[in-house]
């Protein structure tokens, strides 16, 4: 199984109105759509123009994207949309609006009152609320995955269009990621400790956080996390987690050839992969090293 074959399957599953849902529904998901656009763009230089137009059509007036067509709120998928549009080109004002929204978007901890709450009443969460990132949706706390992709989107955008505001926001996001790493490396969804008990790292959160930190100084924490992730891949069979691991480890200079072979074998029965997000990320991982890495940073 090669990346191209997975992309062909993705193209077969493209919705009549453009975009992709996660599964069999007709409701386009921005996450599935952006990942599928990134995977398709690598195999077909013209890109899935119809789905790009569909993605652009759901951008909200404030520059953000909702989680899915029909949703009223901006969401973390704005970062993924910015990354996808950066890959396929097009009107830079669209990305400017998206990144401006990301710069302005803040989690609950950004407010002094909630910071005070986390320092007093909710101290068992074990976080430093002065270091905040991005929420999944407005009104919530910072979490690792939305923060990681927001940092990647802002770093990619500010490589060509630097701004002090974006840089300040990137620094706060990075501080949050470093603050919330698990004791032995890696990242859980958010906190690393609850009521004194350490939480176990998750593969996708760790891969995303490391990709956001790929151009930061290689601290012991970062390298421990890379090693943790590498260790997890030994017996990993789940397509999505294996694919995220490949995309991340490649950026840290690891050899991913064997992992790609294993992924190709696990993804061989493509009809069993019903989640289009998983299919897209598997295609991207199989393309790793052969085309532009969608989450690479060039700062």
């Amino acid at each position, binding site marked *: 199984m090669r990346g191209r074959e997975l992309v062909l399957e993705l193209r077969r599953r493209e919705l009549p109105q453009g975009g992709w*849902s*996660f*599964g069999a*529904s*007709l*409701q386009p*998901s921005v*996450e599935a759509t952006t990942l599928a656009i990134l995977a398709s763009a690598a195999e077909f230089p013209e890109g899935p123009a119809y789905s790009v137009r569909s993605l652009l059509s759901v951008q909200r007036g404030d520059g953000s994207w909702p*989680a*899915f067509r*029909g*949703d009223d709120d901006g*969401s*973390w998928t704005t970062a993924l949309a910015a990354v996808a549009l950066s890959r396929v080109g097009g009107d830079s004002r669209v990305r400017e609006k998206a990144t401006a929204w990301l710069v302005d978007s803040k989690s*609950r901890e950004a407010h002094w009152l909630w910071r005070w709450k986390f320092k007093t009443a909710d101290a068992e969460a074990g976080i430093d609320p002065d270091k905040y990132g991005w*929420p*999944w*949706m407005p*009104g*919530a*706390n910072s*979490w690792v*995955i*939305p923060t990681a992709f927001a940092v990647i989107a802002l770093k990619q955008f500010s490589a060509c269009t630097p701004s002090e505001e974006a840089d300040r926001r990137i620094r706060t996001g990075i501080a949050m990621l470093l603050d919330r790493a698990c004791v032995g490396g890696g990242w*859980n*969804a*958010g906190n690393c400790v*609850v*009521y004194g*008990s350490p*939480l*176990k790292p*998750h*593969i*996708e*959160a760790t891969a995303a956080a490391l990709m956001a930190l790929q151009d930061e100084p290689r601290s012991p924490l970062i390298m421990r996390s890379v090693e943790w992730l590498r260790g997890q891949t030994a017996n990993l*069979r*789940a*397509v*999505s*987690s294996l694919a995220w691991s490949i995309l991340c480890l490649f950026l840290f200079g690891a050899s991913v050839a064997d992992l790609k072979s294993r992924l190709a074998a696990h993804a061989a029965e493509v009809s069993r992969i019903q*989640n289009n*997000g*998983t299919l897209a990320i598997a295609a991207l991982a199989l393309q790793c090293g052969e085309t532009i890495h969608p989450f690479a940073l060039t700062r």
Partner: protein
Amino acid sequence: MNSNRRQFATTAAGLAGAAATWSTIRRNGPDVRKARSRVAILSVEGYSDALETLLLAALRDFGLNVRGRNVLLKPNLVEHLPGSPVNTNPKLIGAAATCFLRLGASRVVVGEGPGHERDTEMVVAETSLEQELGHRTITFIDLNRDELVRARTKADYSGLGRLWLPKTVLGADFIVSMPKIKTHHWAGVTLSLKNMFGIVPGMKYGWPKNILHWHGIHESILDVCATVPVDFVIADGIEAMEGNGPLQGELRRFGRIVLADDPVAADATCARLMGLDPLLIFHIAEAGRFLGNLDQNRITMLAEGMPRNIEPFRVLPKFQNLQIRA
């Protein structure tokens, strides 16, 4: 003059009463309590193939009518932590699926939206649920990524007003909540009502569904359960969790399954079995006002009665007030 004043006072009191009643109705949602609820406590040694026979006999005692109905089993799947009783056991889920088909259900699906781990396929595979459902040809639906429909909440504790919910859940004819009996570091316990948090889609609300925490965990549980009624409960307490649940607690070999045709009666019974007072757990106590029966006098025990001696579940210090004092 006096008469006018009295009339005014009467009218004002009437209006205030009506407003209070309306406010209570709106907050609570419609009263769906049965005249009597039924609960069965079953002592079970472990997770074996014998579960299916035991469960089928117990379900028959309830005389459930699921013939031709589309049944959704909602277990509690969080993430795979080997050796830790975090998830509803796959053998129990598989046995329940087969039992409902044998009782005449036209379709049985298992649906869950894990709260923290985004790779649902990995959770389903690593916990062996995939294998358990595969050989029974039962479909698993990732509720975090299902098609979503916006629904007005039927109670208003959280202030959310509307919730995006999975089409699979809203389209089910008969919903079975299958919690793992555990303590919970924010809610006190996680039982059949709290288990319904898992129907709230991560695709909209994130991993975890943190915005609901900001609207109040207990309050959100009440709104979700008022909007999506639970028809039946099969609670897995064969291996339960005490202490710092729902992830980091310790195994408690509890040896029981609790079945009920009312989620509030189920949770109240489970809490009592855990040595905890359900009246002190806000979402259970409040649910007893409109979603189901909390009072033991309105619960018929179909199998075993409450045990005489209960060794309370260990809880975090902040929940020690929940423990029933002898």
